[in-house]
């Protein structure tokens, strides 16, 4: 995308470059669009850092903090609801991503060996599943019948396999030159050896991208936890965010479990929760961004 789109732009430049007015309009539009994305985050981070006097004076939302205080972060990390939810979210994301990656790559490899036993019907099952979603109630019943209610497995197993990701991985594996796998076969390697020693090492980049997509999915999920977990003590971060920020439930000292006498103002605590939910995404985002366009296009073309 980048290399090919650079060329027409450079060739067009000498013929008729846009005039100054149209460039100015474009510039303003783009700056406004970027501001619409960036400014809310500036405000959120600022409010989480602002001290009590400024938050109270401003009526709840601060765009530029005059003095910085880390009290709200100290409060939410003191071992209460938010700390626990953070641990749950990290745990579910790490374990879930590991399971998803393992299961998807193994399946994608098996589906990439054309002509093997059962390969066509299994591929058909994977492709066909893209056409429909099973529905909320039947899904709930299956999870219930499997005895997964009120278990963290309910947050992982139902969404562990993404057919779309399997297809992207399969397309990538099929692009690995057959000479490599053939020569390993002749040397006596079985499928597991070929998979572990040849296919996986050649696929590090695509594995990283697919893994990140899975991880973002697990991190962002809240609905599974809402319907499958009855005990609010098991909630992941997104549900805590929903309860205390969107539904604006007042956070008490017992919720926070910190024994702090003087709680920071509610808006600061709320925005601190929002920040810790966003930051992991921001950390992986540059990496995702470098590769995702390619992944999306592969899927779109081969899917």
């Amino acid at each position, binding site marked *: 995308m980048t290399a090919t789109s650079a060329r027409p732009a450079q*060739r067009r430049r000498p013929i008729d470059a846009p005039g100054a007015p149209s460039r100015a309009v474009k510039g303003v539009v783009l700056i406004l669009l970027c501001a619409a994305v960036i400014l809310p985050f500036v*405000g959120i981070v600022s409010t989480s850092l602002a001290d009590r006097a400024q938050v109270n004076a401003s009526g709840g939302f601060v765009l530029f903090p005059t003095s910085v205080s880390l009290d709200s972060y100290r409060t939410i990390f003191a071992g209460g609801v938010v700390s626990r939810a953070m641990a749950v979210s990290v745990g579910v994301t790490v374990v879930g991503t590991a399971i998803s990656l393992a299961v998807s790559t193994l399946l994608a490899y098996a589906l990439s060996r054309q002509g093997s036993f059962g390969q066509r019907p299994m591929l058909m099952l994977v492709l066909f599943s893209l056409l429909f979603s*099973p529905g909320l109630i039947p899904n709930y019943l299956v999870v219930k019948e499997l005895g997964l209610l009120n278990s963290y497995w309910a947050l992982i197993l*139902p969404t562990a396999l993404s057919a779309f990701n399997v297809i992207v991985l399969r397309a990538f594996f099929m692009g690995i030159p057959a000479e490599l796998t053939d020569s390993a076969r*002749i040397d006596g390697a079985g499928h597991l050896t070929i998979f572990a020693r040849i296919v996986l090492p050649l696929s590090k980049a695509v594995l990283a991208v697919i893994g990140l997509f899975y991880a973002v999915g697990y991190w*962002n999920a809240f609905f599974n936890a809402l319907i499958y977990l009855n005990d609010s003590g098991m909630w992941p971060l997104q549900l805590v965010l929903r309860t205390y920020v*969107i539904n604006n439930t007042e956070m008490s000292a017992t919720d926070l479990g910190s024994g702090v006498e003087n709680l920071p103002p509610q808006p600061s605590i709320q925005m601190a929760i929002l920040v810790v939910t966003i930051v992991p995404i921001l950390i992986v985002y540059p990496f995702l961004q470098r590769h995702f366009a390619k992944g999306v296009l592969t899927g*779109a073309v081969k899917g």
Partner: protein
Amino acid sequence: MESSVSHTDVATGDTSSRPVGLDRTTTGMSSGAPRPFLRRRRNPWYSRLIRDRALLVMALPGMALLLLFQYLPLLGNVIAFQAYVPFLPFGQSPWVGLDNFAVIFNGDPAFVNALRNTLVLTLVQVILVFPAPIALALLLNSLLSERIKRAVQSVLYLPHFLSWVIVVAVFQQVLGGSGMINNFLRTHGADTFSIIGNSDLFVGLLTSQVMWKDTGWATILFLAALSQIDASLYEAASMDGASRWRQMWHVTLPGIRGIIVLLLILRLGDSLTVGFEQIILQQGGVGLAASEVLDTYVYNNGIVGGQWGVAAAVGLVKGAVGVLLVLGANKIAHLLGENGVYKS
């Protein structure tokens, strides 16, 4: 790929299938002559099964998850025809025929309301949300500086990766009663407004959230299509004296027509699905009359309300109509000469 498989048939598959025995004794009776002929035919299924057992073991966990959570739930739809009792073993509840479907056929007001809201949202979003990434992609594509283009893309793609919980929270912080904008207006003595929790503006709020979250991301496919347009077409048009606007109309838009038609048809195929998580998070403030859509109807009646059979019936009809719409949309895409989601 094909050649490697047939190669292994000879090298390993053959020897591993021999100990199966039965096949050997029967063919052995009629002397060795027909064996090469038999061998050249397709391997019997059990010998391929044994040959490919490693692959099957590798596929097993993934296929198990797929069958358990994608195909097994289809069986769960039987409760649409039952008066489901949660504590009875699965499938033991009394059968009630099509009673659960009565809300659909008799036009239960709550169901009709949910259906209407769904279709209104789809319509508004097709009109407002769908063209936005096309316009943005054209704007980005017209930028001469590759650096600026990349920087803008980095910023605008970001919201796609945030969860709906975060997006809804961010909108509350910006537009809410004590949010960023109202605070600004208040401190400057202007009138404040109420958008969050206002049922009249709910459709607009949902639409703007969808646009904020996904417009940047949705440009990817359009930008890819734009980069495929032959640059010499622009040069030719420019030589003929076409202005930049005429170039856009006669070169750029025809060049991306295919992907526009395809994505539009796919969106229409998905007509019955609108922002489930997004709406669930915000239903509290605005009430069901304005905010209930089909997916939330299933959730509120089934999992919250305990009317399992009715909810499953609505979900089943919605799913079936949804598959028909997707297949129909795909068919239309093929008829228009575009590639659909799947081929043949």
